[in-house]
Structures are given as C-alpha cells and as structure tokens.
C-alpha cells in the first residue's frame, strides 16, 4: 500500500500526536464537567478548592431531577422498542425488496440523521400542536422515534445484508413457514445488529435535547431539558452532577454493547 502505517517513520509520531490532540479537544470538556461535579466550589471554579459529594446529595434529594431522569428513561425505552420494530420491517423492505423507489425510501428513512434537528423540531412542534400531541409522552416518543430510525435501520440492514438468504430458504424447505423461518432463524442470526439498533435508538432519545425542548411541558421534562432549563436559571454544580450521570449511563451502555458484541461473535 502507498500509505503503509508501519512505514510512515516520523510521520507516525506526528499522526499519533495529532490524534491525541483531537481526542483531548473532544473529551476534555466532558472530563472537566465530571471533575467539577466533585468540586466544592459553588461557582464551578477550576481547579476546585476541595472535593465533595454534596452536589450529588442535592441532586438525589430533589424529586424534580429524579422525575426528569425517569421520564428520559421511559421515553428512551419506548423509542428504542418502536424504532427497532419499525427499523426491522424497514430493513427487510430495503434489503430484500425489489420495488421501484426503494433507494428513495432508504434516503427518506435516513434523512433525520442529516436534516438540521432544529428544522425538524420546529416542523414537528407545529404539527403536533395541531394534533394536540405537544407536551405528551406519545408526542415525545413519536418525535424521538423518527430521529432514532436511522440509528435502528443502519445496523439492522447491515446485519441482514450479511445474512445469506439461502439459510432462510433452507429453514423453509425444512418445513418452517416463511414467518416461522424469519422468527426462529433469521432474527436470532442477526441479533447483534438488532441489539445495536436498540442501544443506539435508546441513546438517540436519551441525550436528545433540541426536539425535547419543543416537546417538553412544565410537567413533562427529560433530563437534558431539565439540565438546559436549570442552566439558564441558576448555574449550580448540581447540573455538573446530573451531566456526569448522563455521561456515565451513556458510557455504560456503550461498554455493555461492546462486550456483548464480542461475546455474541465468538
């Protein structure tokens, strides 16, 4: 190969340094937030004059934070279930289907990933207001499902493409009805893709803030909305604590995904 990594010489060191710099630039703010959540300064001063768990105590003592976290978890779970179900059906159509406009449909289903979120948020806000879905759990879940669909379809469709249809045909010759063959053979064979789809859809909803701000009502707030709102009223390290927990759960889910993938593949 022209650009062989092992033969780059001094460029290799430069590449490593650059990569480290980019990673630091992206990750340091998160590290600071986590550090600040344990700092004793009320004004988020850095370096912190001392260390404390006080902000976490305050966080867990305030029912509105707990409420927001539970709302987030509930909406993200429902979003994940819905997105995986629709994503699975869509993947079969996109991978196996032979119909006109298949590529158009694929593009359409993946649009939410590239469309500016704020444009989608305003559109769906106006639409849901008319339907009376604004500020409801249903509205939240539907809006987040649209956003999560690309993240559900991509891993599922990729897994299905890698699955030889002859295996499903073999199940049918063996006496399984086409539906039985899909449920008992095809789905278990692409379970890694489906599992990834579930995690990614969950996360797409869990840390989504723009659409959530438009969908939220005073009585229905997700964790990111609550963080955003608190940030505007008073700058307290409790926000750093809440943010740290948000990051922690996301990180935990990613690690679980990676571990399960490895386990399922062997």
């Amino acid at each position: 190969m022209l650009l062989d990594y092992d033969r780059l010489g001094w460029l290799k060191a430069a590449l490593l340094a650059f990569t480290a710099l980019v990673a630091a630039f992206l990750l340091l703010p998160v590290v600071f937030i986590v550090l600040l959540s344990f700092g004793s300064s009320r004004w988020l001063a850095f370096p912190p004059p001392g260390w404390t768990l006080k902000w976490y105590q305050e966080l867990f003592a305030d029912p509105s934070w707990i409420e927001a976290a539970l709302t987030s978890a509930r909406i993200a779970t429902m979003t994940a279930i819905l997105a995986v179900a629709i994503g699975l059906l869509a993947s079969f159509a996109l991978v196996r289907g032979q119909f006109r406009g298949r590529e158009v449909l694929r593009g359409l289903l993946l649009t939410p990933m590239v469309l500016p979120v704020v444009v989608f948020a305003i559109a769906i806000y106006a639409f849901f207001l008319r339907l009376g879905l604004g500020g409801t759990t249903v509205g939240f879940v539907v809006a987040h499902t649209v956003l999560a669909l690309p993240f559900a379809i991509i891993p599922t469709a990729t897994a299905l493409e890698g699955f030889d249809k002859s295996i499903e045909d073999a199940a049918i010759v063996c006496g399984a009805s086409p539906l039985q063959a899909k449920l008992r053979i095809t789905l278990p064979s692409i379970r890694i893709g489906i599992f990834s789809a579930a995690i990614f859809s969950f996360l797409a909803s869990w840390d989504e803030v723009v659409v959530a701000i438009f969908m939220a009502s005073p009585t229905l707030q997700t964790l990111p909305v609550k963080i955003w709102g608190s940030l505007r009223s008073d700058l307290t390290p409790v926000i750093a604590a809440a943010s740290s927990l948000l990051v922690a759960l996301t990180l935990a889910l990613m690690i679980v995904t990676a571990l399960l993938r490895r386990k399922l593949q062997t």
Partner: protein
Amino acid sequence: MTQPFLSIRKLRKAFGAFTAVHDVTLDIPKGEFLTFLGPSGSGKSTTLYAIAGFQDPTSGDVLLQAKSLLSVPSHKRNIGMVFQRYTLFPHLSVAENVAFPLRVRRRPEAEVKRKVADMLSLVRLESFAERLPAALSGGQQQRVALARALAYDPPILLMDEPLSALDKKLREEIQAEIRRIHRETGVTILYVTHDQEEALHLSDRIALFRDGRIEQIGTGEDLYLRPATDFVAGFIGNSNFLVAEHLETVGSTSTIRLADGALVSGINANGSFVHGQKARLMIRPEAFRLERAPNNAELSVEIVDIAFYGERRRIVARTSAGQEIDIRPTSSAVATHDASPGQRQVFFDPGGAFLFPA
C-alpha cells in the same frame, strides 16, 4: 405402465424474454439417483428450484406420486434439500440444526432425540453434536446439512451443487459418503452439478442440460459411449473431432472420407446425412490404438509430444490434414509399441467412432 414416482411435465420457466427452461419432461423412478448436468445457465438449477418451490414455473407441472406439487408451498412439500452454500443455522448447535425440521413438525421429544442420533451417525458426526456450525469445516457443514435434509424422511432429496465450495480431495470423500447414504436410505436424489466427473461417479442416470433443454438422458455409460449429439460428446469426457465428408449410410452405419482422403466405413451415424455432406467424426482419445487390430481403421499422424499421466500416456499428434489430436494409450501399450515423435499409423475401431453434422 405404472405411475412414475416423480414426473416433470413440459416444465417451462421464462424470465421476461429469456426462457431458462424449455418444456422439460422427465420421469424419475423411486430410489433413483438422477443428476442434472450442464454448463452454468443451462436451466438445471432452475428446474431444481421449481421442484423445491422457490421458482414458480411459467407452465408445465411437477407431479409426485401423481399429485401436483405446484400448488403446495415450499414448506409443505416435505422435500429435503442441500444447498450450494453453507446453510446451517449459525446460532444453533449441530444437533439442533438436525432437530429443526422435526421441531417445526412438532414431533415428540423422544423421537427427535432418536432421529438426531440416527442422522448424525449416518453422516458419521456423532461426536460433533454440541458444536456450533462455525466450528466445523466446510465438508462437515455439508454433511450436517445432509443429515438435516434427511431427518424427516423426505421422499425426494434435492442437492444443488453441494460440493462446489470444497476442494478436490474432500469432494471425492463426500461423494463416496453420498453414494453410501443413497444406498443405505434408498431416498430418491436429484443432484445438480456442472462437474461431469461428479455426475459419472454418483448417478444412476444423467440428464445433460443445454440451453434449457435436456440434450440427452441416460446412464453415464450411455452418454459416454453413445453420445446423441456432438455437444454431449464434447461435454462428457475428452473427445477428438476429425473433419470428414459423408459418403453413404446403409442401415445405421456410414462410410466417410477423412481429410487425408482415407475412406472409413462402419461408422455410427447420428442423424441423417446426404452424400458429400461435411461432418465431424468423434473419437475418444483412449479409443486410438498403437497396434493394428482386425477391422480397425487407420490414420497416419505425426507424433509431436508424449507425456506421462500415470496409468496412461498422453500423446499430442497431428494428422496429415494439420488437425491436432489427443491420444491416450495405456502406459503398457506405449512400452511395447514405439511412440517416439515422428510419422506413424494409429488405429481405431470405427464402431466406437461417431459421426455428427459439422
């Protein structure tokens, strides 16, 4: 006449303007091992898939014991099938793969257990029952696929080039296994391959496909020794085609003139010829002899090259008309009859040579 076990009647399959299978008609007795042989795109796989129910034929019918299969969906046809590609269910153990067809039929657990054990011992993989397919070699996977396809005692077993992904040595091993399993179970097998040797080794009869039609059907010997067309002669085994001119036919034997002017009579003629018609004379490489025998025709050639092929030698020779031919005498014949490069006569039995239209 009694009803044939499996009967294919005027089966036709068109994809748009392209007709993959033209009115194929075929009767298969119970317990036969029939091979569909032919080059790729000759319609052999399409015919098999129509029997399996994965292709709906444009017209025609497939009858099993006088009942049409076409209105029966694939999963209710109760047919066994082994595919070209590895189709074991990747998340199930070998034993569960074999058990799958019995489980979807809701057979009692004791029967499933017994049958799985029987099938795994049939393909000699008893000790692999708990393995996952990914931990098996390609040959082992196809043997498990065979066990799975036979687990529910299907009346017919379809095999679509099941050995094409395996290397030559393994292929021969599994061919022997398939023959043994056919003998032990007595199942009717329809086998698709493009490999003529595989077809000759395995089959009771071979149907040779060409452009969606059956060119000839018969035993391997029929096709090899009595080819109906020059396509069959060229596809099965090695053959030499000499330029010839037809002079006359009496009964079923003809007299011809070869390019060097020699007259040969007693040739088997395929089709009707007129006087003076250009034709091609097919002679198998091993039909040429180095020594004269009674009633043999002779051909003067220049021996160009001779190579050692184990039990036979391969001689490349050129006729006086400039045509290159392939001669395969036994090594012992070469030891007694000099075959060093240079001019000499070679001999052949006209009864083993066939005349085809040019």
